[in-house]
């Protein structure tokens, strides 16, 4: 007899699981269906197949500009967040120092701050200091919110890496920096990649903080928000939605497969 679940229980839970998965994916499937629907209003009955909305969005320069801006912001902010995250993770995992508790609490605290509060805080900072709002101010904000995620991804991996490898390099005359470059970093690389991906997607999708500090050059979520709020070309936005959701699902699955492979390789090296 199974101690956790009766056969009926397992059947009921499997059915519930299936229902929830349907609930989670149905809205996405509905978007997919209506992105090919030949009508400017997303409503039943379906009126025929078209690729018009995809063609229109490819020709929409505002939208492409917004996607490009978000790609730049995400690339910059995640690169900075990963560098800061590596530094912080090494300090937290490899070094002993006083006030480690408060320091790690501070480093992770952007995880719990309400984004509306952080957004207006940055707004008031830039206003007080007199920095005009631009994509740079968005990058600054996104580095802050991505940093804890990168630390959380990097720390466990760093803990897995055997310290004696670093000590060996150090004993053989490598400087600490050289040790990092030639030993630690290559072993840390899979985590660096996932940290970068997480920071990138966080930034690419971030609306709340950006809405306060964005300048005239808007990011993709800012563009989307106004398009969703005042849907005058809804089918086009739906087509974009399908593309973005599909790409991000592929990235998620790809990253997970990559992580599995890297993990297996690390285990076989041990």
């Amino acid at each position, binding site marked *: 007899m199974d101690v956790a679940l009766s056969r009926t229980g397992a059947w009921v839970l499997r059915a*519930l699981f299936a229902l929830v998965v349907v609930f989670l994916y149905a809205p996405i499937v509905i978007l997919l269906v209506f992105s090919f629907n030949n009508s400017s209003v997303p409503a039943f009955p379906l009126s025929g197949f078209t690729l018009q909305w995809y063609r229109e969005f490819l020709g929409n320069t505002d939208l492409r500009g917004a996607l490009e801006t978000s790609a730049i912001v995400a690339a910059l902010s995640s690169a900075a967040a990963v560098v800061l995250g590596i530094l912080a993770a090494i300090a937290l995992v490899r070094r002993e120092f006083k006030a480690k508790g408060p320091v790690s609490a501070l480093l992770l605290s952007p995880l719990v701050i309400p984004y509306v509060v952080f957004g207006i805080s940055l707004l008031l900072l830039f206003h007080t200091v007199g920095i005009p709002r631009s994509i740079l101010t968005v990058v600054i904000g996104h580095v802050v919110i991505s940093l804890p995620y990168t630390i959380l991804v990097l720390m466990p991996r760093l803990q897995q890496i055997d310290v004696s490898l670093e000590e060996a390099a150090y004993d053989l005359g490598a400087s600490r*920096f050289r040790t990092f470059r030639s030993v630690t970093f290559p072993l840390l690389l899979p985590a660096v990649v996932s940290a970068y991906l997480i920071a990138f997607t966080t930034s690419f999708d971030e609306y709340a903080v950006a809405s306060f500090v964005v300048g005239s050059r808007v990011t993709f979520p800012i563009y989307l928000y106004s398009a969703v709020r005042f849907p005058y070309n809804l089918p086009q936005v739906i087509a974009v939605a399908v593309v973005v959701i599909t790409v991000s699902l592929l990235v998620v699955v790809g990253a997970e497969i990559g992580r599995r492979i890297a993990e297996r390789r690390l285990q076989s090296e041990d």
Partner: protein
Amino acid sequence: MDPPAEVPPPSHRRRPRLDLATPSLLGLPLVWLGAFFLVPIAIVTAYSFAPALAPSPHPLTLQTWHDFLHSGVYLRLFWKSAQMSLTVSAIIVVLAYPLAYYLALSGTKRKYVLLLLLIAPFLTSYLLRVLAWKVILGNNGVLNSFLFWSGLRSPDNPISQLLYSRFAVMLVLGYIWLPFVALPIFVSLESLDRRLLEAATDLGASRLQAFRRVTLPLSLPGVMAAFLFVFIPTLGEFVTPSLVGGASGYMYGNQIVDLFETGFPDWETGSVLAIFLLAVVAVLTVVFSRFLQPRQVAQD
């Protein structure tokens, strides 16, 4: 007495200057957070006490705080938002628990694939998932038009109140956070030692008793973590209510935004509201800190 002869330092190899000592490691991250996280919060705090930081005759004042605490309007709105967040968090934790239980304890071989299936929607665009519901719930949206088309409901009589309501806000928030709450619960159930359940069964406990006396208590930290991971961010939510909430779904976060962005901004009051929210979140985080250990999230 002669001072002890100084021991010559052991001859060190020359070390390059670039040394990753602790201060140089922590310097950049801490400076960044100081300048772009702590200082901004300090400025908001200052605004809440001293209107218009520019040199002015106004000394520090508690007036804005006094108005906030006594008018009741904002506190009532806060309470309404807190109730909405509490309801959403409680419902989806209860819904996610059996899912996590199934994944962790049914012995299915594909549990990580299924977990990924469950969590993947959480990792796609937030705004686009809200958009999907806006398309579905509108008076002439997918749901209503389907009902008209299939003849289940007459077009003169759509199910209104689907969109732009408190219900819509809670449905969408629940939809958005549901995949995520399963994760901490799954982690706590996954680490449960099955031998405890076997022992309980051997001692004559039924499955239900074993669940109530062993599984549930041991998974409570994960349940608490899941609850807080939803409750804390939804408490200050403003994006979803502004898109699907209308007037009745208006939340505390929307009020903060409006005090900063509408035609008649009132930054002092807005700062008071923001700091109040931050204080509530900070207290929750500190009180429940043992459930919010990052380890619980990091292991996926």
